[in-house]
């Protein structure tokens, strides 16, 4: 060990090295970070959303455009990964520092709305605006955004679902893609001609195989909620029929084989990894955002879209949907700025200008005015397949999920019941009854505790 009077050169070097490193780190840490606010003299509107990557860039252009369009507010975004968005929002609210405005999935609206966390948006509108809003918006934006008589979420991008299919696959299978099946049953029958297997008996390509009980229950004439009577209808005969249909069709293909096929695919992918682009799906039921995705990642793909044909005795153009909704917390600090931003994006402030924003992410409009604006019409001409979804969207039978405070619980349980059914563990009827039972018990428990149900 070196003592003070015989310091080795090595030690000196070591100390000098450490000193330089420390100094460098210190300087680095002390340099100012990116300026959070670039626009002096404006009120900050803090906006939380969940789009990152390429979609985040699209959202950023909208924010920039809003900031340029006026001189009072500056919207400052924060990206919150979707999986933790809910806990972050709740903690922010409890912590007394919520965002001024946030985009989240529709499913949070009834829960948060009933807890008094969200600002009823009609309170920000004049009486006339509110009446006009109710009269012109697509029905589903009301059934999804409202709880009781109040509007808690403003859509900036509803979802609508339809069938995507590849005509070439139909032709190869000896089918006529122009003469698309008129019923769900027929679609399932011809789909058998579209399936392909490899030598180890794994499916490499699949036609249409039904899934999504939430949606099909509505298509079959049932649905989880009766919007007229305002009550849950979980175990209706129509719902049992829908579940039964899903299970029977999947049984034909083979429970395990279907599960393998679909879990083998990154079907949630929002990029070029979507299996439809790769040719693994000949005909699949999916949301309108895929049109924009295909345009971005596989512009040469030849495909068509069409509304899901109804089953015999079912409802055409029916379904359950959701979407991205703007919410303003009750405790938001900059409500006026937030509302300006919501009006700007949603199109309440002007259909023509908002139409261009909607096309940017391939989003469905709030009302027909926006759909008919020049920019939107231009988008539809450039992406003719998108029209299918605008058509579906306007349907009276397209509804939101049950607008009750326990919606999240109900949807989780509905998906769970479907999961048990499509693996053959529960019979279709049992799956639906289990759903009913779990929801009734949970609601009773919550009612006893004094929660809203």
């Amino acid at each position, binding site marked *: 060990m070196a003592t003070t009077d015989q310091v080795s050169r090595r030690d000196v070097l070591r100390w000098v090295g450490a000193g330089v490193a420390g100094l460098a780190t210190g300087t680095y840490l002390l340099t100012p970070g990116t300026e959070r606010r670039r626009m002096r003299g404006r009120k900050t509107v803090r906006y939380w959303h969940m789009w990152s*990557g390429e979609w985040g860039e699209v959202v950023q252009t909208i924010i920039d455009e809003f900031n340029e369009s006026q001189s009072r507010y500056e919207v400052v975004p924060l990206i919150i*990964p*979707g999986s933790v968005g809910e806990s972050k929002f709740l903690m922010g609210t409890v912590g007394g520092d919520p965002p001024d405005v946030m985009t989240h999935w529709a499913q949070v609206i009834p829960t948060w709305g009933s807890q008094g966390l969200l600002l009823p948006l009609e309170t920000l509108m004049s009486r006339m605006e509110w009446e006009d809003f109710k009269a012109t918006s697509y029905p589903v934006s009301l059934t999804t955004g409202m709880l009781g008589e109040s509007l808690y979420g403003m859509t900036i991008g509803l979802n609508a679902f339809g069938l995507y299919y590849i005509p070439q696959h139909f032709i190869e299978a000896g089918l006529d893609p122009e003469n698309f099946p008129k019923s769900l049953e027929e679609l399932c029958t011809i789909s058998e001609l579209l399936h392909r297997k490899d030598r180890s008996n794994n499916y490499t390509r699949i036609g249409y195989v039904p899934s999504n009980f939430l949606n099909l229950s509505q298509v079959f004439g049932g649905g989880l909620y009766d919007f007229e009577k305002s009550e849950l209808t979980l175990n209706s005969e129509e719902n049992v029929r829908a579940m039964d249909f899903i299970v029977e069709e999947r049984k034909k293909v083979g429970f395990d084989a279907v599960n393998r096929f679909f879990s083998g695919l990154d079907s949630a992918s929002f990029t070029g990894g979507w299996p439809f682009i*790769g040719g693994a799906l000949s005909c699949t039921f999916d949301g309108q955002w895929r049109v924009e995705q295909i345009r971005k990642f596989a512009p040469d793909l030849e495909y068509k879209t069409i509304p899901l044909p109804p089953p015999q005795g079912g409802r055409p153009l029916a379904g359950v949907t959701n979407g991205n909704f703007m919410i303003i917390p009750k405790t938001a600090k900059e409500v006026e700025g937030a509302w300006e931003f919501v009006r700007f994006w949603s199109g309440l402030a002007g259909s023509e200008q908002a139409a261009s924003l909607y096309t940017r992410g391939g989003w469905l409009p709030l009302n027909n005015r926006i759909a008919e604006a020049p920019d939107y019409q231009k988008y539809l001409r450039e992406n003719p397949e998108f029209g299918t979804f605008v058509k579906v969207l306007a349907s009276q039978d397209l509804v939101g999920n049950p607008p009750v405070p326990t919606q999240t619980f109900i949807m989780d349980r509905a998906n769970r019941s479907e999961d048990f059914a499509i693996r053959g563990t529960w019979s279709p009827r049992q799956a639906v009854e289990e759903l009913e039972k779990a929801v009734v018990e949970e609601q009773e428990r919550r009612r006893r505790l004094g929660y809203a149900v």
Partner: protein
Amino acid sequence: MQSDSRWLAPQKWHKILVHFCLIALSLPAVLPLLWMVSTSLKPDREIYATGGGGSAPTLASLLPQAIKWSNYAEALATVPLGDYLRNTIFLCIVSIIGAISSSSLVAYGFSKLTFWGRDVLFVVMLGTMALPGQVTMIPVFTLFKNLGWYGTYLPLIVPAFFASPFLVFLLTQFFRTLPTEMLEAGRVDGATEWRIFIQLVIPLSKPALATCTLFVFLGTWNEFFGPLLYINDPTKYTLAYGLQQFLSNYGGAWSYLMAAATLFTLPILVLFFFAQKTFIQGISTTGGK
């Protein structure tokens, strides 16, 4: 030591066997990492070539056909890396200072001083390690909120200054191995406990403290949920949060995610490779003995 350890240097055929075993075993350890790195270098088209219900990948698909370094640049361009790195380093440094100084003080108290109720308190401290974080999460959050700390770094930093049970436990194990006679000699000379601690104990504990430093560093580097809950300012987030963004449902491509994950892991990897001797030595004087 050297002369004693001859038996650990085995015979030649034996060595080959050990190499063989280790290589075989390291395959499952390394393959996923190679997969991560190779994906990070592939163009999107190649990644999806095996997807879409197509052919199953083989070992050959580990090698990218065309290396695309720009994935890294593009991934980095989507997050404010400079801010995140600065914040992460800042939090790491402050947490290390806080955790090490407070934990070593407490560990010294528990291992080398006698006072009323010491053993009971020690057991209580160990017991808190078994406490699931979810139990206290909400009340702790409310506490920080009431202190007015929400939206600042304080909830992430301040608890570090109040000693971590895990580190205290490791350090007490180490301090117990220090000869009591040496400390007694200091006490006879009239040194205060504080001076003994600072001038005798700390210099002798470098490997143990280095190990603890690495643990704190790892913990802070990977911490994602804390910053997410308490921070609201977009420029105040950390690298772990940046990484999470690539996972977001509306996020970008696999290649970017893998590039980000590789970059995120790399500094820790380099650190471990060079520090492993001190690290393992440090653990050997602390770990659970």
